[in-house]
């Protein structure tokens, strides 16, 4: 779908074969992907790899790669776990081109042409490119609750790698991979929530019990209103993150943490309530609402693995408030 529409080129500048639109437009596409539960590698390719490569696009081979991605001829996804799990270790690069390490739970890590792999060369961070098909790269598909998306563990054991960036440039690219995932999945969760709520509103307007549509019962009305408020709060969290991507680190980190927490939890909460408000039909296999519920849960944990973002957020805000500079103590 995305290939035919050329959506994978949404952010790529025109001179590299893209449509050159902005971040907000890109996120609208992710939101629509969420509404439609699109299952391909759109988030990792368009949300993560393209922004990361654009930061390295003074390099001609990288520019060529971006052109191929824009044209839908190349699928590159990150083999990177640290964007969702802060404690994940990175693969190790040896002899300048030899990569080893396991990257767990790689989003759409299967059937790709190449992986973009943040790694360590000694103490130095690098961004490596590993072409798929090598016998030194092993992909293990993982069963998942999310039926519209695939995950795999990717293990490199002496895989042949090309280094695209080192040091500060590599760190920037890693940050782009993380920010890209956060914004794309947050937008996707907003889309999931919006679609689940819309389906629910449509349903309660027609489903009758006790001689009236159930949407006329005040309890149902108020539940739906509360979900609407929650959805708007998630949209605000996402808007705040977009607004802060170019701000100083503390504000940027705090705002991204809010988007991670609020968009992820809202997607799950609304999908859950949507099932409930659909009554019995909502927990039958043939109704599509459970696919939203599954995806929403998956996004929730990817965006805030084990609730780690709360502390990230608190620490960033303390920095914003310039704590640590001393404050009067309450006895």
């Amino acid at each position, binding site marked *: 779908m995305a290939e035919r529409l050329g959506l994978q080129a949404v952010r790529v500048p025109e001179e590299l074969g893209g449509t050159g639109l902005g971040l907000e437009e890109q996120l609208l596409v992710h939101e629509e992907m969420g509404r439609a539960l699109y299952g391909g590698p759109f988030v990792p390719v368009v949300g993560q790899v393209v922004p990361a490569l654009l930061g390295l696009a003074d390099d001609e081979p990288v520019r060529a790669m971006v052109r191929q991605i824009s044209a839908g001829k190349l699928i590159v996804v990150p083999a990177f776990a640290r964007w*969702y*799990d802060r404690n994940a270790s990175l693969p190790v690069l040896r002899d300048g081109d030899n990569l080893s390490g396991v990257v*767990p*739970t790689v989003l759409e890590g299967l059937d790709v042409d190449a992986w973009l792999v943040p790694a360590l060369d000694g103490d130095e961070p690098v961004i490596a490119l590993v072409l798929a098909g090598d016998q030194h790269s092993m992909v293990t598909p*993982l*069963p*998942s*609750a*999310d039926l519209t998306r695939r*995950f795999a563990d990717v293990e490199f054991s002496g895989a042949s790698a090309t280094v695209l960036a080192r040091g500060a440039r590599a760190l920037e690219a890693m940050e782009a991979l993380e920010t890209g995932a956060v914004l794309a999945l947050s937008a996707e969760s907003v889309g999931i929530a919006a679609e689940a709520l819309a389906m629910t509103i449509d*349903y*309660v307007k027609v*489903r*009758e*019990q*006790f*001689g*009236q549509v*159930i949407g006329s*019962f005040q*309890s*149902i009305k108020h539940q739906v209103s509360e979900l609407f408020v929650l959805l708007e709060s998630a949209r605000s969290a996402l808007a705040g993150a977009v607004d802060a991507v170019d701000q100083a680190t503390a504000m940027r980190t705090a705002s991204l943490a809010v988007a991670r927490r609020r968009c992820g939890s809202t997607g799950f909460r609304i999908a*859950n309530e949507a*099932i*409930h*408000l*659909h*009554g*019995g*039909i*909502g*927990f*039958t*296999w*043939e109704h599509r609402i*459970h696919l939203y*519920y*599954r995806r929403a*849960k*998956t996004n*929730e*944990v*990817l965006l805030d*693995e*084990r*609730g780690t973002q*709360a502390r990230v957020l608190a620490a960033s805000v303390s920095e914003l408030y310039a704590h640590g500079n001393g404050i009067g103590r309450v006895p």
Partner: protein
Amino acid sequence: MAIRATTTLDEIAAEAHAFLEPRVARLSSDERFGEGPDDLVGTGLQRGQSELDEVEAARVWQRQLFDAGLAWVDGPKEYGGRGLSGAHRSVVQRVLSEYEVPNTACFMVGHDIVGPTILEHGTPAQKAAYLPGIWRGDIICCQLFSEPDAGSDLASLRTRAEPTDQGWVLNGQKVWSSFAHFAQIGELLARSGDPADRHRGITAFLVDMDAPGVDVRPLRQITGSEHFNEVFLDDVAIADDRILGEVNGGWQIALTTLSSERSLMGDEHSGLVRDPVRRLFDLAEATGAAADPAVQEVLAEAWEREHIVRQTARRAMSGDLGDASGSVIKLLMTDDLEFYIAAATRLLGTRMVVDTGSWGTYSWNQLVLGAPAHRIAGGSDEIQKNIIAERILGLPRDPRPSIPDQPSAPNTTRRTTSDAHR
């Protein structure tokens, strides 16, 4: 076995132990984390031979219990019961829970829902015909109440019962029926009067599930399991003596059945999921997260919730909550379930949604997928709140075009069945 006129609670307990000890193993009181199956919800939810084998094992076991006088402890002797008190029954249940007995969930609808209704409303002939078989394990029961367009609003049901020369003929469709695919009888509500009469035009029948025209089809849930059924009735002939209660008096029967169902829901926490709070504590310990003060707070709340449900069930047993007990406990439990899911999510992260093969991690996803049904089954959250507001607290009924005798709840048992509430 000679049964004395009076049996003390200690005596019945000793008798149960004496029966069980030579037959089955005692449950280990200290199940080890990381060993054995890591399922969090009941098993046997897939169709096929293994399910049928399990049902057969349950029947064999139930027959032994019945013959030992331990099946229907508080039932009247003339219908196969032991004639003792509810307290005696509780004692036997507690003793049974200490042993690795076969899973007898397939009898739940019969023992706790349909059986009590027959006992209260059946003719002597009906009681004699069904009750011993239900308790002996020969007759598995199902409920045939909910319909696609009659969930919470049960009184709008449309399955027709038309009188014939020989009795009645039934036509219609039922949904959310647990155990219907191996049940012998179903308690069915059908419209025998004018639909405009709503609850006053309904008759209750005891339908043979192998009668011609009864077609049972599995209904797949979002868990992937096929626990429920759709039941189609196509010109099913049924005799007058299968009517439970009066013609057009089925609503009264339904109220009894639904009330039994609610009581069942509030009966015990343990059946819902396998010791989830203990599993959360173990998981926190095993992952090292237990050292995190924020995690400790989550664990504390989880235990608090479980403890409060247990204490509420204890109070309910002594009558402290009156008619509110089923609704109160159900609302607490469904809310608790959401909390346990959130707690497990916090401990597991991606392992909650991706199967890494690690023991006791991805199995929590069973709970994520199973939870939504619990908020609907046996009367939705909204129905329970209406029941409390109107029947317990005396607040006015909702303004409605036509008002049923009660905001009805559907045919269902907790872990077993459910309903199309909206």
